[in-house]
């Protein structure tokens, strides 16, 4: 509960944060809402030498209709996503998923960019972004690049973000009235999902199904998606949801239980999404 000593810097802009990252490299961590990093620091599981606070970079806090997609600034808080009219109209899945993150205190602090960059496979928003086929924008010393959600996550708390890069925007494809569902299964409302399933059906890009806490990264239920594309029923496809996954075993359940949950929740998600 007592973090190790660290230096604190406040960045007033994304560029200032990136410059600070370039100065300190792997010794630095960005602090956004703090609900992932700070607990790890208090347990001394994370001991960054420098914490760069980007919590007040207000120009990365927005939800904008950008035509084909909705652009969300990385420092937009869960609560603002949950209550965004633009998202409610065009990407209701993400607004709903944001409403299920943690508890109200967490949602008023935590940010979508922080959640995605943290790359926790048990988090809700990364899987929603994956199911939607979202695109992430990262900025580094050399400028900006776009990264497909499917290419972003590389392992437990690992992503393709370089040490001197910062996630700046999340581009969420408009759902155009597609059916959707998010089935989150946990023991307490505030907890991470034991398993969750995000599904999007009928947005012209096939049925997207992504799984939470079924491996070291958020993963697509590839076998389910392929089966649906090949004409299988929702029930048949859902039975394949855990294929190829390697879910963890912990106090909330072993991997066998998680696989069973993935199948059940996928069936429910597909039904709910109209697939």
């Amino acid at each position, binding site marked *: *509960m*007592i973090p*190790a*000593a660290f230096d604190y810097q406040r960045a007033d802009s994304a560029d200032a944060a990136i410059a600070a990252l370039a100065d300190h490299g792997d010794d630095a961590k960005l602090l956004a809402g703090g609900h992932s990093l700070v*607990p790890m620091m208090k*347990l001394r599981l994370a001991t960054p030498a420098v914490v760069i606070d980007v919590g007040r970079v207000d120009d990365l806090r927005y939800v904008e209709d950008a035509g084909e997609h909705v652009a969300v600034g990385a420092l937009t808080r869960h609560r603002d996503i949950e209550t965004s009219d633009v998202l409610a109209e065009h990407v209701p899945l993400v607004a709903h998923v944001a409403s299920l993150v943690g*508890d109200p205190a967490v949602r008023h602090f935590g940010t979508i960019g922080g959640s995605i960059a943290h790359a926790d496979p048990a988090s809700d928003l990364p899987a929603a972004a994956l199911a939607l086929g979202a695109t992430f924008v990262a900025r580094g010393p050399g400028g900006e690049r776009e990264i497909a959600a499917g290419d972003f996550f590389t392992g437990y708390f690992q992503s393709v973000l370089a040490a001197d890069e910062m996630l700046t925007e999340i581009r969420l494809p408009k759902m155009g009235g597609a059916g959707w569902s998010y089935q989150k*299964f946990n*023991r*307490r*409302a*505030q*907890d991470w999902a*034991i398993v969750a399933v995000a599904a999007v059906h009928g947005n012209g890009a096939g049925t997207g199904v992504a799984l939470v806490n079924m491996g070291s990264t958020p993963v697509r239920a590839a076998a389910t998606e392929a089966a649906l594309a090949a004409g299988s029923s929702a029930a048949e496809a859902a039975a394949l949801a855990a294929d190829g996954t390697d879910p963890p075993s912990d*106090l*909330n*359940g*072993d991997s066998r*239980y998680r696989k*069973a*949950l993935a199948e*059940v*929740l996928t069936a429910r998600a597909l039904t709910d999404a109209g697939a």
Partner: protein
Amino acid sequence: MTVTDETASEATGVIGTRRLRREDPALLTGEAKFVDDLDLPSQLWVGCVRSPHAHARITGVDVSQAAAADGVVAAYTGADLADRWAAPLPCAWPVTDDMKNPAHQPVAVGKANHVGDIVAVVVGSSRYAVADAVEQVVVDYEPLPAVIDLEDARSDTTVIHEDLGTNVSYTWELIPDPDAVDAAFAAATHTVAERYVQQRLIPAAMEPRGVLVVPEPFGGDLTIYSATQIPHILKVMAAITLGLAEHRVRVVAPAVGGGFGSKLNVYAEEIICSALALEHGVPVRWTETRSEAALATIHGRGQIQDIELAADADGKISAVRVKLLADMGAYLQLVTPGIPLLGAFLYHGVYDIPAYSFSCTSVFTNMTPTDAYRGAGRPEATYAIERAIDALAREVGVDPAEIRRRNYIRAEQFPYASPAGLEFDSGNYEPTLDQAMELVGYADLRAEQERRRAEGSTKHLGIGLSTFVEMCGLAPSRVLASLNYSAGGWESATVRVLPTAKVQVVTGSAPHGQGHETSWSMIVAERLGIDPDDIDVLHSDTAIAPMGLDTYGSRSLSVGGTAVHLATEKVLDKARLIAAHQLEANPDDLEYVDAGFQVKGSPGARAEFAAIAFAAFTAHDLPDGVEPNLEAQVTWDPPNFTFPFGTHIAVVEVDEETGGVELLDYASVDDCGNQINPLIVEGQVHGGVLQGIGQALFEKAEFDLDGQPRNVTFGDYLVPSAAETPSFKHGTTVTPSPTNPLGVKGIGEAGTIAATPAVINAVVDALSPFGITDVEMPASPDRVWALIHTQEGGGS
């Protein structure tokens, strides 16, 4: 709300009202000061180096690097401090004459016996400095096999405390008539034999522990500020453990954020900070982190229960036989060995069972010591009998409500001489069952359950009953003596009327969230006829309230509140003499009405309470033989325990596909005798029920086979919140206790005692189509799913 009985009362209308708690504004606005809020010049912080091993020989401790670190003043090994302790940490309840009790040093020497055992301490200028320095202490360990399983412990394959020669601390029996028990089982038509596991729980008070010890600059006196439930007991024990004269020690419990029994203790950190404050001559403090709390503060429960019932063809129970195996943990804390005994008398529950057999064997393990946790022995007892009677209902083939009705102690049997040797003060059990069944719509639920089963629904409805009685108001001192408890069970109160007729109440019962200030002011206001806001309640400082036995075991109201009531009566008796003098009347001819005395039948001339108070202060014209001032002190030693009771019903839905258990409805009907403040009663029931649900569905202190704790943060140790429950339905009946003049019983633990078996009975009921008759706690979704999907021949 149904009231089945009313006591005659000279009510002025304060008692029984839903008065808002006067404690809450300060707590809710952050104005209340907890130990950690205190901040003193020159203070030093203590950091504790804790064993990462459950069982290990300590072969070397090097504190030199830590001692030289920035901001560090000193660092100590256990050996360095060994001569500071005049006695080991206390266990005040040697339940048997031959009980084994290992010397429990505040800082371990030679061996560490659980993860979290303190092996060295550092002292420095800030929390941060000592947290860093703790990591620089080098301890060499030789790991030993950890004793985690209770049966393993009993086998003595690995003996934890070698000097004791065994892991068994004691065996305690209560078998009034062994032949009667054997005969009952021999003659029984139906028997059930069940084994239940009471998992270890982490008490998880909202405020972790903390201590700040201030040596006075003159005379060597010591003031211990501690987040404790027991300032008075801590004062005595700190003096003994430190070898100080008791009158040199003062203990203050500032605002205390809950305890649930976990702060009913004398902890190493309190003694360490005291010794180091004396050594350094400055305030020395420590505040527990949440993860430390999971290791270093006592755990609750930790028992394996074997219970058998014998019954006739109708399910009328003739005998109960219970064998406990209880987990003491690594050491005996203040009342560790006594916890099973607090339940030992209650394994027949609310049922009239003539033959009774209880025995308990308690063993040491390489885990955090256990001790009192909300209900302390009684939840365990209630769980066992309430689960077992459901098993009997299945065996006999009758509804769980019906089997209970056939076995209740009947209203006309009170006062009831229990088979375990207690006298139950008062009770009327069946109306609480009727009311609870009505609150949940029992008949409709059973119909809905059948409908779902017939349809083959995967959402299974379960209804669970728990009818309970508990033993509160700890305790008659003579009874405690018979149980080898090292203290009495009385409580002290002073009522002091100030010159302007404002009132100070001094209570020896130290609250930590219960609302004593509100309730005590209501008790006094009721009798004096004055505004409760004109009454201050002083407590939790041994310099202000020197005599007391503190708050635990749902004792405060029935023992401490009664003392307050009786002290108020004494004040009124004296006021009556002064009034009679003023009115030139016979005291016996006076009546007290609207905060003043008047002659019965002629209300014209009055002696107002305020005028009497001032006259008592000036003492200008008091009757002969009457001392100045209106002040009275009473120490109340209750003649008996009180026995609150009730019925709780839980309704759950179990999702066959996920194993998820959702609590759909919950009704409690509690009878705690007369209620001083129904709002506080309901608050206690709500919190208690949620805590009981926690044990049933969410909580377990998990250890691996090496004794490593697996859930020491609130991310992993799941304490339920309001979001996990429906809005509770609450009913009440009122059967006053004849053991005290207020007719009160106690409500602090009832919810916790009742809820756990209600919820598990509901889960088992839901799972009965699968042939499932037991589910281990907590009934987590993965566990329930595994039960359903490994049952042979089950399925709906």
